[in-house]
């Protein structure tokens, strides 16, 4: 199957190679957005003046008016200006919003861009507790943060503990997933762990961070950034690359704190993915590659089950039995995922989108999955709280 024309397609992409903090250049978000926009426009063979849509996350330099600030900085005039505040789900959330705006004729070419450069926010700012806000009136400031419900590690561990209680937990199955993704990273020169294959024992012997989660089951922060351009069919018709359609999408945002989730073992992705598959008119078995948001191994497991690639409770067996390498029987996070590529702040969500586009356009070079026409992509913001699913199809 290939994606039928539906008024919009992804026609260009950009991604900075991941870099460690020590050798990362100092770059503001605006400078990074400028560089990513130029790379994406060059990739799509479009002039700057074609951009009339912009989707950004917040930028560090300005607490408000991010789209206007970016438009002015780049020198573009926007028909569609959007801030998408969904954390790790922002990238996937941007893609379907942009596709809808382009399909509706609101704009012709929309830049979806997320910088992931340093410096990170200063330690004394309100964002120092990870996804939790310590501002007056914030429920997290009153009820979560004083009890140490902060950051990400312990909170994702709660999902893992609950999974363990009901379905069992197989550390070696999780380690195998990490190993396979690392193999994919070793076929991606831009990945932070390129040239560094590991074995299951390396994962199982890595330091315990919040049991059962070990260090190598958790993403490493890196410097980076990524962008794509979503454009009209008219523009896509002249694209130098195979255009990529947004064949389906779904989004669910229902809670912020883990204690407010309806059911930890049935996260929002369940309905988001079902809606994405329904809109695309396909089933999970039709997917040629999956790019699943992987801040933690447990996050991947819950999405594999929630999206219907295996039944609830069968995720560990799935991880033991399937081959997740780019040439395996379930190509997953073929660029290494964030576990292998590194997590460049919220741009970590965009790396999954960019990799899906590369695979569908036949541009993944030595890690190309053969015959890739349909990709499943997810985003995950906060602690399994804002979740987005995309079905992307080569045109």
């Amino acid at each position, binding site marked *: 199957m290939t994606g039928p024309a539906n008024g919009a397609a992804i026609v260009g992409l950009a991604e900075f190679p991941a870099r460690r903090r020590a050798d990362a250049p100092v770059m503001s978000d605006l400078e990074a957005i400028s560089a990513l926009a130029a790379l994406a426009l060059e990739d799509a063979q479009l002039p700057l003046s074609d951009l009339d849509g912009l989707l950004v996350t917040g930028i560090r330099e300005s607490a408000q008016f991010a789209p206007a600030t970016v438009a002015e900085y780049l020198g573009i005039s926007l028909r569609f200006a959007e801030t998408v505040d969904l954390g790790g789900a922002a990238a996937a959330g941007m893609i379907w919003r942009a596709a809808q705006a382009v399909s509706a004729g609101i704009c012709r070419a929309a830049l979806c861009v997320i910088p992931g450069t340093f410096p990170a926010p200063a330690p004394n700012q309100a964002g*120092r*507790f990870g996804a939790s806000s*310590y*501002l*007056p*009136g*914030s*429920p997290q*400031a*009153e*009820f*979560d*943060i*004083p*009890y*140490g*419900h*902060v*950051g990400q*590690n*312990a*909170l994702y*561990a*709660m*999902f893992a*503990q*609950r999974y363990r*209680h*009901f379905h069992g937990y197989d550390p070696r199955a999780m380690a195998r997933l990490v190993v396979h993704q690392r193999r994919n990273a070793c076929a991606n020169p831009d990945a932070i762990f390129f040239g560094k294959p590991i074995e299951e024992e390396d994962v199982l012997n890595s*330091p*315990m*961070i*919040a*049991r059962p989660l070990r260090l190598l089951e958790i993403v490493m922060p890196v410097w980076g950034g990524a962008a794509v351009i979503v454009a009209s069919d008219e523009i896509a018709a002249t694209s130098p690359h195979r255009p990529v359609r947004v064949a389906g999408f779904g989004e669910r945002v229902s809670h912020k*704190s*883990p*204690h*407010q989730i309806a059911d*930890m073992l049935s996260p929002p992705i369940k309905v988001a993915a079902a809606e994405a598959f329904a809109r695309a008119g396909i089933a999970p078995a039709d997917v040629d590659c999956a790019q699943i948001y992987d801040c933690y191994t447990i996050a991947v497991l819950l999405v594999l089950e929630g999206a219907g690639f295996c039944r609830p409770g069968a995720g560990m067996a799935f991880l033991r039995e399937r081959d997740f390498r780019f040439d395996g029987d379930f190509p997953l996070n073929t660029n290494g995922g964030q576990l292998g590529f590194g997590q460049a702040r919220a741009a970590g969500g965009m790396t999954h989108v960019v990799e899906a586009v590369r695979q569908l356009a036949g541009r993944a070079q030595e890690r190309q999955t053969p015959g890739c026409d349909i990709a499943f992509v997810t985003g995950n913001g906060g602690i399994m709280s804002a979740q987005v699913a995309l079905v992307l199809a080569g045109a």
Partner: protein
Amino acid sequence: MTIPRPLVTALSEPFWRGLAAGRIDLQQCSACDRWIFYPRPRCTGCGAAALVWRTTSSRASLYSFAVADRPVAIEFAGDALLVPVIVELDEGVRLPSTLEEADPDRLRIGMRLSPRFDRSTFPDLTLLRFAVSEQQ
């Protein structure tokens, strides 16, 4: 470093007053009977502005837990092992807390918990912590 103080709001003041008196008082909707946590102006079940403060049973079980083998933040890097938990009251609401005197290897989802009213962390504010109940 001291742990971050709860930023109390006027709306939730009865909750904190209840803790100071050794009770877990929460809002219950008089239209649909749903209990809610944390305090809000309206019921999250039916939207009615009919929430009434009532005293819960204080009976609770463990919904999930984490063991901070590495400190979750510098403010919590003390001597005691932090065990953040999500507690489910028998009334059907869940709330965040920590477990006191917990043996991490013996924790089980669903085990019965009892409240511990912590008056020592802050001189003027009682925190709601939990411990594993003697009777399971």
